[in-house]
């Protein structure tokens, strides 16, 4: 197993960073957030056509680049840095990875090529009342009839649920737990935006009243665990990118802002806290990297590593985004300063795939504490 990023990864990182800084700065994020966090269609197309980003982890036979969680981590770390606004996390980190984990070839052949081409956006809703992969929190039901399946219930927090063309939901059948694909505009599907503190990421409540659905795979209990781990590793990478950007912002400001005739960054009260953040963030980068690498390797430790990364990177992002505001003083508290955008993203990211405490509880289970 590789134990760190290679030169190819660094190159991918540089290309994505350059692209995002040109096409999707934080100023842009702010504009898009105000417009409902839908994303920029033109940028979305360029990402697919010029950069092959939507197809990054899609197998080559379905029109993708056939890369793995490590490469997706590199891309998401950069998107986290740039506060990228658009349905990439939902479509790729959630839906594509869930489709590959569940391994239903017909479903893959049907949707993955269109996702790779940038023509289709998608999302996933597992737990009813949280955007997590906690299967115990599924009460939505699916019924089979001669015409096929239909799903009823509600999913309260679906990432990009307002705009996704395809929604993959978990629902209980008579015997087991299944994954079902619904068209975003299907009859009986009602969606409503859920405003959260993070205006750069759109969430929606989706109500399902006997919505016609396609079943994906069989009993999904096992496979969804892997999908959840892949999503957790991807989110950890995005979080640590955001945390690193918040620290960079704080450091840049601390070098420039003069009080008492010296840059505030020369005061240890600032310096030491920046150093502590650096410790937390670099360790978080190791955590996110290893979660992805172990998942790619099918290593038995991968599930623990994914929860490790989620618990750690959530805390790192929350801390870094708060400190960034503090070090900016009064300016940091203003709407104009980007600092609050990071805090907002961090606050929602902290819980979207399970709070740190839930991941620690899972780790305790997994190591048979």
């Amino acid at each position, binding site marked *: 197993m*590789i*134990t*760190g990023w*290679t*030169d190819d990864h660094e190159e991918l990182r540089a290309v994505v960073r350059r692209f995002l800084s040109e096409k999707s700065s934080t100023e842009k994020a702010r504009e898009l957030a105000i417009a409902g966090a839908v994303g920029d269609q033109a940028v979305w197309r360029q990402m697919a056509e010029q950069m092959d980003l939507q197809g990054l982890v899609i197998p080559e036979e379905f029109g993708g680049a056939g890369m793995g969680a490590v490469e997706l981590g590199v891309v998401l770390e950069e998107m986290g840095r740039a506060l990228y606004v658009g349905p990439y996390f939902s479509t790729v980190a959630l839906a594509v990875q869930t489709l590959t984990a569940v391994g239903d070839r017909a479903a893959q052949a049907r949707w993955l090529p269109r996702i790779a081409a940038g023509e289709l956006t998608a999302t996933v809703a597992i737990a009813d009342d949280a955007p997590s992969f906690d299967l115990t929190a599924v009460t939505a039901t699916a019924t089979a009839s001669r015409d096929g399946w239909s799903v009823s219930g509600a999913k309260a927090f679906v990432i990009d649920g307002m705009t996704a063309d395809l929604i993959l939901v978990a629902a209980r059948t008579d015997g087991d737990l299944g994954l079902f694909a619904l068209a975003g505009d299907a009859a009986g599907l009602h969606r409503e935006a859920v405003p959260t503190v993070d205006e750069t990421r759109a969430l929606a409540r989706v109500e399902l009243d006997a919505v016609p659905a396609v079943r994906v795979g069989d009993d999904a209990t096992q496979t969804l665990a892997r999908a959840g781990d892949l999503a957790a590793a991807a989110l950890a990478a995005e979080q640590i990118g955001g945390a690193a950007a918040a*620290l960079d912002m704080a*450091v840049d400001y*601390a*070098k420039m802002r003069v009080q008492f005739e*010296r*840059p505030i*960054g*020369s*005061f*240890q009260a*600032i*310096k*030491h806290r*920046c*150093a*502590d953040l*650096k*410790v937390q963030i*670099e*360790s978080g*980068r*190791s*955590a996110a*990297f*290893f979660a992805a690498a172990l998942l790619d390797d099918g290593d038995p430790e991968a599930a*623990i*590593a994914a929860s*490790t990364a989620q*618990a*750690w990177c959530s805390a790192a992002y929350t801390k870094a985004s708060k400190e960034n505001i503090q070090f900016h003083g009064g300016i940091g508290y203003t709407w104009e300063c980007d600092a609050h955008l990071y805090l907002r993203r961090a606050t929602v990211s902290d819980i979207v795939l399970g709070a740190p*405490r839930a991941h*620690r*509880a899972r*780790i*305790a289970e997994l*190591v048979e*504490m």
Partner: protein
Amino acid sequence: MTQQIETGTVMTIESDDEFRARIRQWFADNRPAKRPRDPAERKSWVRAYHARMYDARMTGPSWPLEYGGMGLSFAQQVIYQEELAKARVPSPLGTGLGIVAPTIITYGTDEQKQRWLGPMLRQDLIWCQGYSEPGAGSDLPALRTTARREDDFYVVNGQKVWTTHATDADVFFTLVRTGTQESRQKGITYLIIDAHAPGVTVRPLKDITGGEHFAEVFFDDVRVPIADRIGEENQGWPLVRTSLGHERAAGAMNQATNYRRILDELIALARERGLTTDPLTRDRLADFEIRVRLMKYNASRIINDIIAHGEPGPASSVSRLFITMFEQELHEFAVEMLGADGIVTRDSERAIQRGRWLTGFLGSRASTIGAGTSEIQRNTIAEQVLGLPRDPAMPAR
């Protein structure tokens, strides 16, 4: 990866797996005997074991072959460190081998290398670091121990303090002042001082654990041959920063392995006492579980960076702070978790595991002080990694 190695006069090619197997086999065949309880016996036990390792060329992983080391590639050093941690080899006596050896290898004369390096590895000579003084800790360039030239000797007067294992020492590697006090680091010379020379007094200092692991050292007109100076007079300061290869980075893996074992022992203890069903205890233990894994991931990343780019990268500058905080918090929690049993010393019948968690609790206070305090570490990360400006009140480096 394969690596060409020289064993005596024969050249062989050995893969990393073969290397690991060989190292593991050697430690299995040469298991350290049970640790004697009597301190004097323990010392000779440690020395004998390291002599055995040296004679079998099993010590000094990063040292060049010509000085009795193993001359390993970096990847092999990592393997060696992992196996060393598993074999629970006693640490060598004395301190700072990783500091003084590279200094001698880089700046010493041939005669000095011959005289000191092999015996240092073999533990025929026990070395200790005499840098700190009562008035010069973090601000080491303020040191006041003087060395005045007299014929072919330096005459040394002054005091060192907190010198780890000084009572075992045969030799001190020290920094002494040969220039004026105002010249600060430009007036410092690197001297090797015979611990048995007339005028040297070592007075053990009882430490926070009740043990006597360090001492104060007094020099009273001690005559040190000029031949025992490393580098030039007044040019000692730059020697302080020498380091050989990436032994420290490889050591990070050794530490990760060690703390994995310690945490497993703590979890086992918690389980035994029925504490793992308590949600708060579980949450804290899971947090340590996370951190001990990150320690390993950080170490692997550093190692990867060195192999790929020849440089340890950003993870290395933060790993020490990460580990020291972990070490302290782990022991603090262990004592807290044990409640009333946690506060009794090894002399009590109620002591859990001979009071090791309490000793660790006290002992780990040193991890954020010794070898540079964590405040100084944070300054370094802030200035050298993040590029924040230096405090204008601090003297020039």
